[in-house]
């Protein structure tokens, strides 16, 4: 190993600043959400209390925070499941070239780069013209999928590009049917990556704003609710909500990462070489 050069320390300092830049503001509102009852939106702290958190649990003048949280959570789970299933199916299909695969590939990329507000507007218009009612679980659900699916699919494409096909050949030689090969060989090997896709599916849905703006209907999801609050709530209750949802997001991310670690550990313990097919 080479000795640490001067550029290492410079870059390390830059990296540290970047991390402070990333996390500093969120930590600040985390601290400020513990403002005393008479505290304002900025420092200094006017005492320390849980006042604003209790405030959240009381009936709010505007909106329905807990209802919107439940909806966002349900929607996140829906989007997550569909994203995982369709991404795996798509990933499997795209291992071979098939007629139309290039067009579909560019459609997936387009899904990623078309501005969110256009999806929102377009889906809203379709429902309007067809005289259907927009609802978070129908139009909102579909619009969010156009954002989570490309991420899931690109992850699966990357996973299958690095997939060692000799595992499948071995299974086939031992007499496994195509379905058995997928079920008992391919899926266990890619399982940790599926957790990653699920993480993207859930969190991107849970935090999505623009695509749900015109497609959620009369029942708001949490980001819509929070955005509504930014325009008419000027007390630290906003920070308390921000802190809670961020803590919730961190808990979700932590859970997913923990599952990956446990999967890995169980594998090394039981001596299986599943997963080492991914280089």
């Amino acid at each position, binding site marked *: 190993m080479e000795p640490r050069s001067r550029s290492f320390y410079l870059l390390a300092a830059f990296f540290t600043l970047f991390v402070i830049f990333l996390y500093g503001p969120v930590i600040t509102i985390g601290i400020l959400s513990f403002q005393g009852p008479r505290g304002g939106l900025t420092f200094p702290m006017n005492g320390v209390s849980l006042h604003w958190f209790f405030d959240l649990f009381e009936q709010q003048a505007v909106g329905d925070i807990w209802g919107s949280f439940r909806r966002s959570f349900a929607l996140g789970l829906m989007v997550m499941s569909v994203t995982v299933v369709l991404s795996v199916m798509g990933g499997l299909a795209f291992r071979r070239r098939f007629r139309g695969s290039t067009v579909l590939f560019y459609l997936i990329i387009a899904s990623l780069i078309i501005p969110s507000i*256009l999806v929102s507007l377009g889906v809203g218009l379709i429902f309007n013209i067809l005289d259907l009612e927009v609802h978070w679980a129908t139009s909102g659900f579909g619009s969010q999928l156009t954002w989570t699916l490309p991420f899931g699919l690109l992850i699966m494409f990357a996973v299958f590009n690095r997939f060692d096909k000799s595992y499948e050949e071995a299974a086939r030689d031992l007499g496994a049917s195509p379905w058995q090969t997928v079920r008992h060989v391919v899926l266990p090997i890619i399982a940790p990556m599926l957790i990653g896709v699920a993480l993207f599916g859930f969190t991107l849905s849970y*935090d999505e704003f623009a695509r749900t703006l015109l497609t959620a209907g009369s029942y708001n999801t949490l980001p819509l609710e929070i955005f509504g609050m930014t325009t008419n709530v000027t007390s630290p209750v906003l920070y308390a909500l921000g802190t809670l949802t961020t803590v919730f997001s961190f808990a979700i991310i932590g859970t997913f990462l923990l599952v990956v670690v446990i999967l890995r550990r169980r594998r090394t313990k039981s001596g299986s070489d599943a997963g080492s097919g991914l280089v």
Partner: protein
Amino acid sequence: MTKTKTDPSKRAERISWLLVTPLTCVLGFFLLLPILTIVTVSFWNYNEWSFFPDFVLDNYAFHLTSAVTWATYLKTLKFMVLTWIFCAGIGFTVAYFLAFHVQSLPAQVALFLVCTIPFWTSNIIRMISWIPFLGRNGIANSSLIHLGIIDEPLEWLLYSDFAVVLAFVHLYALFMVVPIFNTMMRIDKSLIEAARDAGASGFQILTNVIIPLAKPGIMIGSIFVVTLVMGDFITVRHMSGGQSASVGRIISNEISLLQYPAAAASSVVLLCTVLLMIGVMMRFVDIRKEL
């Protein structure tokens, strides 16, 4: 075993089609159809209460001849260029540090996760969280006054173009870090050793070996940053306190006034602009190869 003697390659293709059918349906109904609808509606007419089928070019004529539109596009491009410069600079430096200066893989993974976790949290909360920092009596102003650098609080920190660009960089720098890190991790370390043996300085290695090889990652990151900034309406509205315009905000304003055909026309123009930019950038990178 089925006894039908279909050509195995045809059978494989059929299975592939079957596997992508649900995906195609979702993207067809929630992406392709909405875009087609927007294009159609952009030629429709409207009054105060409703919009109805027609074939008029007024929506485009109004949008394209309005001085506001051009000024707004200029402003949006300014936001985009500034955001891109900062994101690319920060993203490259961070990825370079992670890929070439952090030497153990677990440490790389851990630090990489530290950089990506904010991506999985709410953008709106991350925007709001700048208020106590940048406000008139915020941390930035009070520390600057405390240090004696300024006497009066700076007014341009929050609700300004500065705040908009700052928030964009804060939100989207990750989109640069991740793809650049991804391409850098694939650079064969022996290439760098070869360059060093041939007498290249650290700076020469950076400009002649690493940057050219990391170009696809830089391009993919740029595509993300460009499209996210061009289509944004909420960051600009929130961080400028409603004072700055952006193309996305024009559309969102027209939507809130229920002028759907006008919003559709503006959307089509935005879409063409974005696709044109991406088309140019795609010439430098083959995304399928980068996965």
